[in-house]
């Protein structure tokens, strides 16, 4: 199943949750926020929300800035 993460195409298994995706990406322990098709997915819903074909996700975190 094709989705887009941070502007790049990715293959994920059907039924993958946001939480699952984050773990796959090695971001299980990282403080991030996730936008799915421009809607924020609250952390609490990461385990339940499944990504679907064509979803565009943004996964962001904090970096040094002024």
């Amino acid at each position: 199943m094709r989705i887009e993460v941070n502007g790049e195409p990715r293959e994920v298994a059907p039924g993958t949750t946001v939480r699952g995706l984050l773990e796959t990406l090695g971001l299980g322990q990282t403080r991030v926020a996730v936008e799915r098709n421009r809607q924020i997915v609250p952390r609490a819903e990461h385990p339940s929300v499944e990504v679907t074909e064509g979803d565009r996700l943004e996964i962001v975190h904090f970096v040094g800035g002024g």
Partner: protein
Amino acid sequence: MERDVLKIGTHELASRLFVGTGKYRDMDETRAALEASGAEVVTVAVRRVDLSAKGGESLIGHLLERGYTVLPNTAGCYTAEDAVRTARLAREILDTELVKLEVLGDERTLFPDVPATLEAARTLVDEGFTVLPYTSDDPITARRLEEIGCAAVMPLAAPIGSGLGIRNPYNLEIILQNAGVPVIVDAGVGTASDAAEAMELGCDGVLMNTAIAGAQEPVLMASAMRKAVEAGREAFRAGRIAKRLYATASSPLEGVIGSERS
């Protein structure tokens, strides 16, 4: 003397120096500089996770562990929409209502887009954010931002990273005389005396990043800035002497030897 506390929204701060976390050589330098600055509030940017990169050391982890108040910014946003989106994401990451709002007008000056900043500020205030907007030194815009409900206004002293210092103290003075919320100079400070000058004008705080991170010795400059902000604040509270064109002696006029005078 009563404690001199700065209140922003619900936050009470003893340090009036706000520092950024960008442009440091590495985490060690970042750590040491923040430490030397004595800052309690530090800004961070929101960016896409680089999926190809190894985890590396976490800035945010360090900041939280040391108890810094994290102030996410919307740096890099050129529309109200992007800035609002970025602020919402920041809140989702950290459950903080604080946001340093930046909506930029162009890439050369990094001056704010005033109408877009006002628009984004309205939305974010409505959504319950504690909004600290980066703005020009225009007194009218500063007042509008306050009317909208921003928790502070952050006029620039000069272009971000320019190090030109306070280009127009007159506008800052007008902003200060009419402001009912804290006024924090954001951007343009180049060296210690610039920071002291801002505080002497009556500003409630100073926010900087490049002036420290870009110095040849960032940690030493961080210490300089800490002292400069404290010095400027104390001088403001101490009530400086009036300026005079002519001199006034500091030693007694009486009892000088020398017959022609005594």
